[in-house]
Protein backbone atom coordinates (compact mmCIF):
# COMPACT_ATOMS: atom_id res chain seq x y z
CA UNK A 1 0.00 0.00 0.00
CA UNK A 2 2.78 2.39 1.00
CA UNK A 3 4.64 1.65 -2.23
CA UNK A 4 1.53 2.39 -4.30
CA UNK A 5 0.95 5.68 -2.51
CA UNK A 6 4.58 6.61 -3.04
CA UNK A 7 4.28 5.74 -6.73
CA UNK A 8 1.16 7.91 -6.99
CA UNK A 9 2.89 10.81 -5.31
CA UNK A 10 5.90 10.46 -7.61
CA UNK A 11 3.67 10.44 -10.67
CA UNK A 12 2.11 13.72 -9.51
CA UNK A 13 5.42 15.41 -8.73
CA UNK A 14 6.20 16.80 -12.20
CA UNK A 15 2.78 18.44 -12.36
CA UNK A 16 3.07 19.88 -8.87
CA UNK A 17 6.50 21.23 -9.76
CA UNK A 18 5.24 22.80 -13.01
CA UNK A 19 2.47 24.59 -11.17
CA UNK A 20 4.80 25.99 -8.61
CA UNK A 21 7.34 27.19 -11.12
CA UNK A 22 5.21 30.03 -12.48
CA UNK A 23 4.60 31.03 -16.05
CA UNK A 24 8.21 31.78 -16.86
CA UNK A 25 11.29 29.77 -16.02
CA UNK A 26 14.94 30.70 -16.20
CA UNK A 27 17.15 27.93 -17.50
CA UNK A 28 20.71 27.18 -16.50
CA UNK A 29 23.02 29.87 -17.84
CA UNK A 30 26.26 28.47 -19.30
CA UNK A 31 29.37 29.60 -17.48
CA UNK A 32 31.25 32.54 -18.99
CA UNK A 33 35.01 32.55 -18.94
CA UNK A 34 37.44 35.38 -19.48
CA UNK A 35 40.70 37.03 -18.50
CA UNK A 36 40.93 40.33 -16.64
CA UNK A 37 39.55 43.27 -18.67
CA UNK A 38 38.01 40.91 -21.22
CA UNK A 39 34.43 41.31 -22.38
CA UNK A 40 32.19 38.31 -21.81
CA UNK A 41 28.63 37.64 -22.82
CA UNK A 42 26.21 35.51 -20.80
CA UNK A 43 23.29 33.91 -22.56
CA UNK A 44 20.37 33.43 -20.19
CA UNK A 45 17.73 31.01 -21.48
CA UNK A 46 14.13 31.94 -20.70
CA UNK A 47 11.05 29.86 -21.28
CA UNK A 48 7.44 31.03 -21.16
CA UNK A 49 4.79 28.38 -20.76
CA UNK A 50 2.74 27.58 -23.87
CA UNK A 51 -0.48 29.58 -23.94
CA UNK A 52 1.04 32.42 -21.93
CA UNK A 53 2.94 35.54 -22.81
CA UNK A 54 4.92 38.08 -20.86
CA UNK A 55 5.16 41.76 -21.64
CA UNK A 56 8.33 42.65 -23.51
CA UNK A 57 10.90 45.07 -22.11
CA UNK A 58 9.11 47.78 -24.11
CA UNK A 59 5.39 47.05 -23.73
CA UNK A 60 4.33 50.40 -25.18
CA UNK A 61 1.80 51.21 -22.48
CA UNK A 62 2.64 52.98 -19.27
CA UNK A 63 0.42 50.69 -17.21
CA UNK A 64 1.90 47.43 -18.46
CA UNK A 65 4.77 45.94 -16.50
CA UNK A 66 7.87 45.32 -18.63
CA UNK A 67 10.18 42.34 -18.47
CA UNK A 68 13.25 43.61 -16.67
CA UNK A 69 16.48 42.03 -15.49
CA UNK A 70 18.30 43.86 -12.70
CA UNK A 71 21.63 42.69 -11.28
CA UNK A 72 21.87 42.48 -7.53
CA UNK A 73 25.54 41.44 -7.53
CA UNK A 74 27.97 41.06 -10.40
CA UNK A 75 30.86 39.77 -8.32
CA UNK A 76 34.17 40.18 -10.14
CA UNK A 77 32.34 41.24 -13.30
CA UNK A 78 31.39 44.78 -14.25
CA UNK A 79 28.56 46.16 -16.33
CA UNK A 80 25.87 43.66 -17.21
CA UNK A 81 23.99 45.54 -19.94
CA UNK A 82 21.09 43.35 -21.02
CA UNK A 83 20.10 42.87 -24.65
CA UNK A 84 16.52 41.70 -24.99
CA UNK A 85 15.38 39.87 -28.12
CA UNK A 86 13.10 41.51 -30.63
CA UNK A 87 9.58 41.23 -29.22
CA UNK A 88 6.67 39.98 -31.24
CA UNK A 89 3.51 41.99 -31.76
CA UNK A 90 0.56 39.78 -30.92
CA UNK A 91 -3.14 40.56 -31.07
CA UNK A 92 -5.23 39.39 -28.15
CA UNK A 93 -8.96 39.49 -27.61
CA UNK A 94 -8.59 41.80 -24.64
CA UNK A 95 -6.54 44.49 -26.34
CA UNK A 96 -7.49 46.86 -29.12
CA UNK A 97 -3.93 47.07 -30.41
CA UNK A 98 -1.29 44.35 -30.80
CA UNK A 99 0.86 43.95 -27.71
CA UNK A 100 4.63 43.77 -27.58
CA UNK A 101 5.30 40.42 -25.92
CA UNK A 102 7.68 37.52 -25.51
CA UNK A 103 6.47 33.95 -25.87
CA UNK A 104 8.07 30.53 -25.97
CA UNK A 105 11.83 30.23 -25.57
CA UNK A 106 14.21 33.12 -25.89
CA UNK A 107 17.61 34.33 -24.75
CA UNK A 108 18.60 37.37 -22.73
CA UNK A 109 22.18 38.36 -23.46
CA UNK A 110 24.12 40.17 -20.75
CA UNK A 111 27.46 41.78 -21.49
CA UNK A 112 30.06 42.08 -18.74
CA UNK A 113 33.66 43.08 -18.46
CA UNK A 114 35.91 41.06 -16.21
CA UNK A 115 37.26 43.42 -13.54
CA UNK A 116 40.86 44.62 -13.86
CA UNK A 117 41.65 43.29 -10.40
CA UNK A 118 39.36 40.27 -10.47
CA UNK A 119 40.80 37.33 -8.60
CA UNK A 120 41.25 34.22 -10.68
CA UNK A 121 38.69 31.55 -10.07
CA UNK A 122 34.97 30.93 -10.12
CA UNK A 123 32.15 33.21 -9.07
CA UNK A 124 28.58 34.13 -9.92
CA UNK A 125 26.65 37.23 -10.86
CA UNK A 126 23.12 37.26 -9.55
CA UNK A 127 20.06 39.22 -10.55
CA UNK A 128 16.31 39.37 -10.45
CA UNK A 129 14.07 39.06 -13.46
CA UNK A 130 10.68 40.70 -13.06
CA UNK A 131 7.88 39.72 -15.37
CA UNK A 132 4.14 39.85 -15.69
CA UNK A 133 2.31 37.14 -17.56
CA UNK A 134 -1.11 36.80 -19.14
CA UNK A 135 -2.93 34.28 -21.23
CA UNK A 136 -5.77 34.95 -23.67
CA UNK A 137 -8.29 35.78 -20.94
CA UNK A 138 -6.52 36.62 -17.70
CA UNK A 139 -3.43 38.23 -16.28
CA UNK A 140 -1.37 37.18 -13.30
CA UNK A 141 0.43 39.24 -10.67
CA UNK A 142 3.98 40.31 -11.45
CA UNK A 143 6.64 37.89 -10.26
CA UNK A 144 10.36 37.99 -9.74
CA UNK A 145 12.72 35.09 -10.38
CA UNK A 146 16.38 34.72 -9.53
CA UNK A 147 18.98 34.71 -12.30
CA UNK A 148 22.50 33.36 -11.78
CA UNK A 149 25.40 33.71 -14.21
CA UNK A 150 28.36 31.53 -13.26
CA UNK A 151 31.76 32.81 -14.34
CA UNK A 152 35.38 31.79 -14.29
CA UNK A 153 38.15 34.36 -14.22
CA UNK A 154 41.27 32.98 -15.87
Amino acid at each position, binding site marked *: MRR*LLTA*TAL*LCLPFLW*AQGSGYLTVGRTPQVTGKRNAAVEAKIPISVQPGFHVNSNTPGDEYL*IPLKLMWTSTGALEGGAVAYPKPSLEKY*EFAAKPLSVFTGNFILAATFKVGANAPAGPGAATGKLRYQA*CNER*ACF*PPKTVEVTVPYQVQ
Partner: protein
Amino acid sequence: MTSTYLSAALAGVLVCLLAGCGNRETSVAAATLKPGKERHVAPDFALKDVNGKVVHLADYRGKVVLLDFWATWCGPCRIEIPWFMDLERKNKDRGFAVLGVSMDDEGWEVVKPFLAELGVNYRVVMGSDSTAEAYGGVDSLPTTFLIDRDGKIAAVHIGLASRRDFEDGVEQLLQADAPAANGNRAALPAVSLGAR
Protein backbone atom coordinates in the same frame (compact mmCIF):
# COMPACT_ATOMS: atom_id res chain seq x y z
CA MET B 1 -6.89 -6.54 -2.75
CA THR B 2 -3.94 -5.47 -4.90
CA SER B 3 -6.25 -4.47 -7.72
CA THR B 4 -8.21 -2.31 -5.28
CA TYR B 5 -5.05 -0.48 -4.29
CA LEU B 6 -4.04 -0.16 -7.93
CA SER B 7 -7.43 1.30 -8.81
CA ALA B 8 -7.14 3.72 -5.92
CA ALA B 9 -3.68 4.78 -7.04
CA LEU B 10 -4.79 5.30 -10.62
CA ALA B 11 -7.81 7.25 -9.44
CA GLY B 12 -5.47 9.39 -7.37
CA VAL B 13 -3.35 10.15 -10.42
CA LEU B 14 -6.46 11.00 -12.43
CA VAL B 15 -7.75 13.34 -9.73
CA CYS B 16 -4.32 14.91 -9.52
CA LEU B 17 -4.27 15.51 -13.26
CA LEU B 18 -7.77 16.89 -13.48
CA ALA B 19 -8.17 18.83 -10.30
CA GLY B 20 -5.14 20.78 -9.46
CA CYS B 21 -1.86 19.82 -10.92
CA GLY B 22 -2.18 21.77 -14.14
CA ASN B 23 -2.54 25.49 -14.61
CA ARG B 24 -5.87 26.20 -13.03
CA GLU B 25 -5.52 29.83 -14.06
CA THR B 26 -6.11 28.95 -17.66
CA SER B 27 -9.70 27.94 -17.01
CA VAL B 28 -12.53 30.41 -17.13
CA ALA B 29 -15.48 29.92 -14.84
CA ALA B 30 -18.95 29.38 -16.19
CA ALA B 31 -21.28 32.32 -16.07
CA THR B 32 -24.43 30.81 -14.63
CA LEU B 33 -25.77 31.83 -11.24
CA LYS B 34 -25.56 29.29 -8.45
CA PRO B 35 -28.83 28.13 -6.94
CA GLY B 36 -29.59 29.94 -3.68
CA LYS B 37 -28.81 26.94 -1.49
CA GLU B 38 -25.32 26.60 -2.93
CA ARG B 39 -24.30 30.18 -2.32
CA HIS B 40 -21.80 31.09 0.38
CA VAL B 41 -21.55 34.36 2.21
CA ALA B 42 -19.06 36.76 0.65
CA PRO B 43 -16.29 37.53 3.17
CA ASP B 44 -16.57 41.01 4.57
CA PHE B 45 -13.63 43.41 4.36
CA ALA B 46 -12.61 46.88 5.39
CA LEU B 47 -10.65 48.57 2.61
CA LYS B 48 -9.93 52.21 1.84
CA ASP B 49 -11.27 54.05 -1.17
CA VAL B 50 -9.46 56.80 -3.04
CA ASN B 51 -10.56 59.37 -0.44
CA GLY B 52 -9.24 57.27 2.43
CA LYS B 53 -12.69 56.29 3.58
CA VAL B 54 -12.97 52.77 4.92
CA VAL B 55 -15.46 50.72 2.93
CA HIS B 56 -17.00 47.53 4.30
CA LEU B 57 -18.71 45.06 2.03
CA ALA B 58 -21.37 44.88 4.73
CA ASP B 59 -22.22 48.51 3.85
CA TYR B 60 -23.81 47.11 0.71
CA ARG B 61 -26.18 44.77 2.50
CA GLY B 62 -29.48 44.53 0.63
CA LYS B 63 -27.91 45.47 -2.70
CA VAL B 64 -26.75 43.35 -5.59
CA VAL B 65 -23.00 43.89 -5.83
CA LEU B 66 -20.57 43.27 -8.65
CA LEU B 67 -17.22 42.87 -6.88
CA ASP B 68 -14.37 43.16 -9.36
CA PHE B 69 -10.77 42.30 -8.48
CA TRP B 70 -8.60 44.01 -11.05
CA ALA B 71 -5.30 45.83 -11.67
CA THR B 72 -4.05 48.60 -13.93
CA TRP B 73 -1.58 46.20 -15.60
CA CYS B 74 -4.34 43.76 -16.50
CA GLY B 75 -5.48 44.07 -20.11
CA PRO B 76 -8.63 41.93 -19.78
CA CYS B 77 -9.67 44.04 -16.78
CA ARG B 78 -9.59 47.11 -18.97
CA ILE B 79 -12.06 45.54 -21.37
CA GLU B 80 -14.55 44.84 -18.60
CA ILE B 81 -14.34 48.17 -16.76
CA PRO B 82 -16.44 50.12 -19.32
CA TRP B 83 -19.09 47.36 -19.11
CA PHE B 84 -19.19 47.77 -15.35
CA MET B 85 -19.48 51.54 -15.74
CA ASP B 86 -22.54 50.98 -17.94
CA LEU B 87 -24.04 48.55 -15.43
CA GLU B 88 -23.50 51.05 -12.63
CA ARG B 89 -25.09 53.85 -14.65
CA LYS B 90 -28.12 51.82 -15.65
CA ASN B 91 -28.80 50.04 -12.36
CA LYS B 92 -27.54 52.16 -9.50
CA ASP B 93 -31.09 53.26 -8.66
CA ARG B 94 -32.32 49.67 -8.58
CA GLY B 95 -30.29 48.49 -5.61
CA PHE B 96 -27.10 47.68 -7.49
CA ALA B 97 -23.50 48.74 -7.09
CA VAL B 98 -20.16 47.94 -8.63
CA LEU B 99 -17.23 47.78 -6.25
CA GLY B 100 -13.75 47.54 -7.71
CA VAL B 101 -10.87 46.10 -5.69
CA SER B 102 -7.51 47.13 -7.09
CA MET B 103 -4.69 44.64 -6.63
CA ASP B 104 -1.96 47.06 -7.69
CA ASP B 105 1.08 46.84 -5.42
CA GLU B 106 1.96 50.44 -6.26
CA GLY B 107 -1.30 51.68 -4.74
CA TRP B 108 -3.17 54.87 -5.50
CA GLU B 109 -0.17 56.45 -7.19
CA VAL B 110 -0.90 54.37 -10.28
CA VAL B 111 -4.58 53.62 -9.70
CA LYS B 112 -5.82 57.18 -9.26
CA PRO B 113 -4.67 58.48 -12.67
CA PHE B 114 -5.91 55.28 -14.29
CA LEU B 115 -9.40 55.76 -12.84
CA ALA B 116 -9.40 59.38 -13.97
CA GLU B 117 -8.26 58.42 -17.45
CA LEU B 118 -11.09 55.92 -17.86
CA GLY B 119 -13.65 58.08 -16.04
CA VAL B 120 -14.62 55.24 -13.72
CA ASN B 121 -17.96 56.06 -12.12
CA TYR B 122 -18.07 53.43 -9.38
CA ARG B 123 -16.28 53.05 -6.10
CA VAL B 124 -12.85 51.45 -6.05
CA VAL B 125 -10.97 50.31 -2.98
CA MET B 126 -7.36 49.24 -2.58
CA GLY B 127 -7.12 45.49 -2.09
CA SER B 128 -4.84 43.59 0.24
CA ASP B 129 -3.36 40.11 0.27
CA SER B 130 -5.64 39.11 3.11
CA THR B 131 -8.71 40.18 1.15
CA ALA B 132 -7.57 38.20 -1.87
CA GLU B 133 -6.88 35.24 0.37
CA ALA B 134 -10.38 35.43 1.82
CA TYR B 135 -11.75 35.24 -1.72
CA GLY B 136 -9.77 32.14 -2.62
CA GLY B 137 -6.45 33.68 -3.60
CA VAL B 138 -7.57 35.72 -6.64
CA ASP B 139 -4.44 34.91 -8.60
CA SER B 140 -6.09 35.49 -11.97
CA LEU B 141 -7.30 38.93 -12.90
CA PRO B 142 -9.95 39.91 -13.54
CA THR B 143 -11.87 37.86 -11.03
CA THR B 144 -15.41 39.07 -10.55
CA PHE B 145 -18.01 38.04 -8.00
CA LEU B 146 -21.73 38.66 -8.35
CA ILE B 147 -23.16 39.00 -4.86
CA ASP B 148 -26.86 38.77 -4.17
CA ARG B 149 -28.93 40.90 -1.82
CA ASP B 150 -28.20 38.43 0.99
CA GLY B 151 -24.50 39.08 0.65
CA LYS B 152 -23.96 35.66 -0.87
CA ILE B 153 -21.80 34.85 -3.86
CA ALA B 154 -24.09 33.94 -6.76
CA ALA B 155 -21.44 33.71 -9.50
CA VAL B 156 -17.71 33.91 -10.01
CA HIS B 157 -16.06 34.87 -13.28
CA ILE B 158 -12.37 34.09 -13.48
CA GLY B 159 -10.72 35.84 -16.38
CA LEU B 160 -12.38 37.83 -19.10
CA ALA B 161 -16.07 36.95 -19.31
CA SER B 162 -18.68 38.17 -21.75
CA ARG B 163 -20.57 41.39 -21.27
CA ARG B 164 -23.79 39.46 -21.68
CA ASP B 165 -22.90 37.18 -18.78
CA PHE B 166 -22.58 40.13 -16.45
CA GLU B 167 -25.70 41.88 -17.73
CA ASP B 168 -27.81 38.75 -17.46
CA GLY B 169 -26.44 37.82 -14.05
CA VAL B 170 -27.04 41.26 -12.60
CA GLU B 171 -30.52 41.44 -14.08
CA GLN B 172 -31.45 38.03 -12.68
CA LEU B 173 -30.25 39.00 -9.24
CA LEU B 174 -32.04 42.35 -9.35
CA GLN B 175 -35.27 40.70 -10.40
CA ALA B 176 -35.05 38.05 -7.70
CA ASP B 177 -37.26 38.67 -4.68
CA ALA B 178 -35.54 40.70 -2.01
CA PRO B 179 -34.75 38.09 0.68
CA ALA B 180 -35.97 40.46 3.39
CA ALA B 181 -39.48 39.95 2.06
CA ASN B 182 -39.47 36.23 2.80
CA GLY B 183 -37.67 36.52 6.11
CA ASN B 184 -34.66 34.59 4.93
CA ARG B 185 -31.98 37.26 5.02
CA ALA B 186 -28.55 36.16 6.15
CA ALA B 187 -26.24 38.69 7.69
CA LEU B 188 -22.71 39.22 6.42
CA PRO B 189 -20.06 38.12 8.89
CA ALA B 190 -18.45 40.86 10.91
CA VAL B 191 -14.97 39.81 9.88
CA SER B 192 -12.68 42.71 9.27
CA LEU B 193 -9.66 41.86 7.18
CA GLY B 194 -8.02 45.22 7.62
CA ALA B 195 -7.20 47.93 5.16
CA ARG B 196 -3.88 49.15 3.90
